[in-house]
């Protein structure tokens, strides 16, 4: 699904991301962990073609993301508030994203109905602009919008941050369900080792832009804990 090839991003000569090769298969729950400044967000931005790599490329479905818009149709993403249109209401925002994906109103309702529990009645149908929402609700809007357009890949940066415990649990079950039913691939970064190990079957540890460990299988949590303790 996603193939990274000798990808490097430097700022003023210092490498921020430096990955020889990494491939993420369809239906994979991919977790990215690492301490502050490890390059997690930069890697996500490189995957989404938001910054220009110094060297190398990212391919989604065999095509370089640079100079190519095809992948945007089936990749949903939410990294930060730059992905939201602050002066719209959440309803208007969802509708607009839906238009961009060629959705009819009915399709949109189906997508958003999955989020009803998560929204907890605070997002849709309210006369409130996105800019006036709380941090947690902003995150919910962004995450829901990433699921519009029946994506095959979803990229989320720190999705659990700022979410209340109920929403965290609901988001986890939603991701698991989508993965099981639709073979959704998701890329998630998090500082919370419990969350990532719970929903990811593969976890990559990033340090100073380099892949230090590529873990799969059982006992992920204990392996991660022993790594970060050191």
């Amino acid at each position, binding site marked *: 699904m996603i193939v990274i090839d000798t990808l490097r991003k430097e700022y003023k000569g210092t490498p921020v991301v430096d990955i020889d090769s990494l491939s993420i298969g369809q239906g994979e729950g991919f977790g990215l962990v690492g301490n502050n400044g490890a390059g997690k967000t930069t890697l996500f931005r490189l995957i*989404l*073609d*938001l*910054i*220009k790599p110094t060297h190398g490329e990212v391919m989604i479905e065999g095509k370089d993301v640079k*100079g190519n*818009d095809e992948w*945007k*149709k089936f*990749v949903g*993403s939410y*990294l*930060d*508030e*730059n*992905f*939201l*249109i*602050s*002066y*719209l209401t959440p309803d*208007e925002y969802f509708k*607009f*994203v839906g*238009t*961009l*994906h060629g959705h009819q109103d009915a399709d949109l309702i189906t997508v958003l109905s999955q989020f009803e529990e998560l929204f907890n009645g605070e997002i849709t149908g309210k*006369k*409130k*602009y996105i*800019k*006036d929402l709380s941090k947690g609700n902003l995150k919910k809007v962004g995450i829901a919008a990433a699921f519009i*357009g029946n994506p095959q890949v979803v990229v989320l940066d720190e999705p659990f941050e700022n979410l209340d415990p109920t929403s965290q649990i609901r988001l986890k079950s939603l991701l698991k369900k989508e993965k099981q039913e639709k073979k959704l691939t998701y890329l998630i970064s998090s500082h919370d080792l419990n969350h990532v190990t719970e929903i990811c079957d593969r976890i990559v540890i990033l340090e100073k832009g380099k892949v230090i460990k590529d873990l799969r299988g059982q006992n992920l949590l204990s392996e991660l804990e022993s790594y970060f303790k050191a």
Partner: protein
Amino acid sequence: MIGIFLSHAYKRMTRSVSFEKEMATTVFLGLITIMAVVYALLLGLALEKILEKSLGVSDSVSFLNGLLLYYFTSEFLIRYFMQNLPVLEVQPYLHLPIRKSAIVHFLLGKSLVHILNVFVFLLFLPFALSVVVRDYGIVNALSWILSIWLFSLSVHFIMILFKKKLDDTLWGLATIVLVFGLFAAADYFGWFKLSEVSAALFNLTVTWSLFPVVLFLVLAGLYYGLYSYFLSSFYPEDLSVSKEKSFVHSSDLTILKRFGIMGGWINVELKLILRNKRTRTILVLGALLLLYGLIFYPEETYTETMPGFLVFVGIFITGIFMINYGQFLFSWQGGHYDFTLTQPVSMRQYVESKYWLISSVTIACFLLSIPYVYFGWRFLFLHLACTLFNIGINSFIIMNMAMWDPKKVDLTRSSAFNYQGVGAAQWLMGFPILLSPYIFYLPLSYLGYSNFGLVAVGLAGLIGFTMHPYLIDFTTRRLIKKKYLMASNFRSE
């Protein structure tokens, strides 16, 4: 403590990302300030001559005293636009062991460091030293100038109070209209004359030596009032410029649905314009400037002897929204540029939507300017040529220049004298827009065919318009080339 605050304020300014980029703006504003200072000083030095020689006033001190309230009225208006609320970034200090009173004193004290607060010295000190000393002696002259200064400082604090309590409310506007209306009505119906009140008030400065003391007490009272007010409302949400909370309902323009994704983009952008203060002001300004022609069109001096100048007026009337809004064309939506890049949008559609948005507003301006036919059909013809030029050529100049090192625009801030996001491009953008029509106009008008010059302007616009698919392609290619740079600019504050 004050030293630390000052050093933090200085660091904040010089270390901001945009500091170097906004150098051009800073230099420009600096030059304007120097110019104002020089003019004020020259006027101050010449004041005696103007009053006594040119106007032949015998008691020039009383005469000037009669004008002072008018001066302070205009100072009030100037301050309204130029003076910002003292909003130091206090949030990082609130939880530290610093006395709140120290912060408030610093805030209010720092607000006093403003060129407007010494302006009265530039204007009136020379007069005080020459004329007032001559007529009333040195002590009274000092009392006179001191009183004027104290009065000016009082206006300063009143302005802070006004902006804090009443700005942006209907009450604020009503207060201003009421007060100025009262003065005008009083003058008109002869209840009292502002000049007489003013003369009586400021004559006290030379006849009653305690007057400056009274003024000082007023000033101290104002300061203390503000101090306790700030102290009691010292929470980030009180201090920061109040967010617009009100919900403005605006529904989609259904006609735009027919244009698919492009229409969707235009709908979103219309909401941007209507829901944010800074963009709304641009809209209002565009509407006001439709009246610009009323200054020039009835005057034969302009219409007969300077027909070339009218091209400038025509470009302005039909294109002011395009120019004002277009200079930040991509920056307005800088807050969600990453969104634009990750959605399945073709960049061409994005550019196309921007093109049609600014072009339709220009056409709307043209339609609204049709009543100028009253002054003659030639103005309709002029506006038509200028509209064509604006949508055929200027629109592309603007779109391409707006890509030049753009910065994110903070939509929530108000617009008067707000230079946030202004870079070199914005200052230079006006030149090609206002000068380019003359490339087509001047050669023919020099030969004596100014009407054919206008035809050439219109024709050039028409050619540009018929070629718009190619020009949009060209613009799109440039936008794609610049997208990483723009995205990283928009991400940094």
